[in-house]
């Protein structure tokens, strides 16, 4: 069975190509996803559905798809994996959106059950503005 580090590394190899499928697959349905920050994006998203609907959709309404993240460093210790990555993206209005991320993942049974994301929140607000829920398609 692959290690937690190998599972996360494989998912983010796909993220570097703009394919989030493995990343979403490795999230537990009841994941606790915290985006650290005292702003409209910063909160705890409880469950994969809330992550996709309340974080993913507002994010992708501002960022030109596909969202790409390249791993710069990964370390693992027991049930935890820490991943540093660099985004290489543009907003839908054409501005560069090259943020950096550090994610702390708590793994169980090959799935992420808790994830805490640290990112440059100042850049998030400057480039993406406040989190706004887009209307249903």
């Amino acid at each position, binding site marked *: 069975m692959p290690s937690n580090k190998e599972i996360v590394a494989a998912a983010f190899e796909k993220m570097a190509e703009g394919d989030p499928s493995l990343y979403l697959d490795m999230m537990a349905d009841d994941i606790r996803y915290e985006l*650290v*920050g*005292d*702003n409209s994006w*910063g909160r705890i998203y409880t469950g994969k559905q809330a992550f996709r609907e309340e974080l993913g959709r507002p994010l992708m309404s501002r960022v030109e798809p596909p969202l790409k993240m390249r791993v710069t*460093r990964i*370390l*693992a*210790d027991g049930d*935890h994996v*820490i991943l*540093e990555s660099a985004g290489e993206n543009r907003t839908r209005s054409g501005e560069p959106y090259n943020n*950096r991320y*550090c994610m*702390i993942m708590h793994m169980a049974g090959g799935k992420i059950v808790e994830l*805490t994301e*640290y*990112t*440059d*929140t*100042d*850049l*998030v*607000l*400057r480039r993406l503005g406040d989190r706004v829920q887009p209307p249903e398609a």
Partner: protein
Amino acid sequence: MTTQETNTRIAKRFFECFDAQDLDGALALLADDAQFRVPGKPSESPSAGPYDKKRLRRLFERILQNIPDGVRMTFKSVIAEGDLVALEMEGLGKLSNGRVYNNEYVILFVIRDALIREVREYNDTLHAYNVWHAA
């Protein structure tokens, strides 16, 4: 003691010294050519970017001049592998102008031969900007 345990002690000691306003003690743990990266875009946030040891001392001195009682650093989690240590922390301090700096951090250290070689900090940069730089 394993390498990870030794490295974890060094990483924690760095912030224990900072908490105690012992800058000499903190900086003695850094290699002479160590680099410390403060998060954010240097083009958009005055404090962001890479710091060498000399410049880091000036940054820490400026922080402590503005927070006379110091910044209380609380450890929340430690994750270590090989020469890497990640500390998750919360910092709390009150500036002379009355603003409260209460940030959350994950800080990654590269430690070799009992010296810190590289530090990469992640925090709520918007909170930092609003407390330290906003009008």
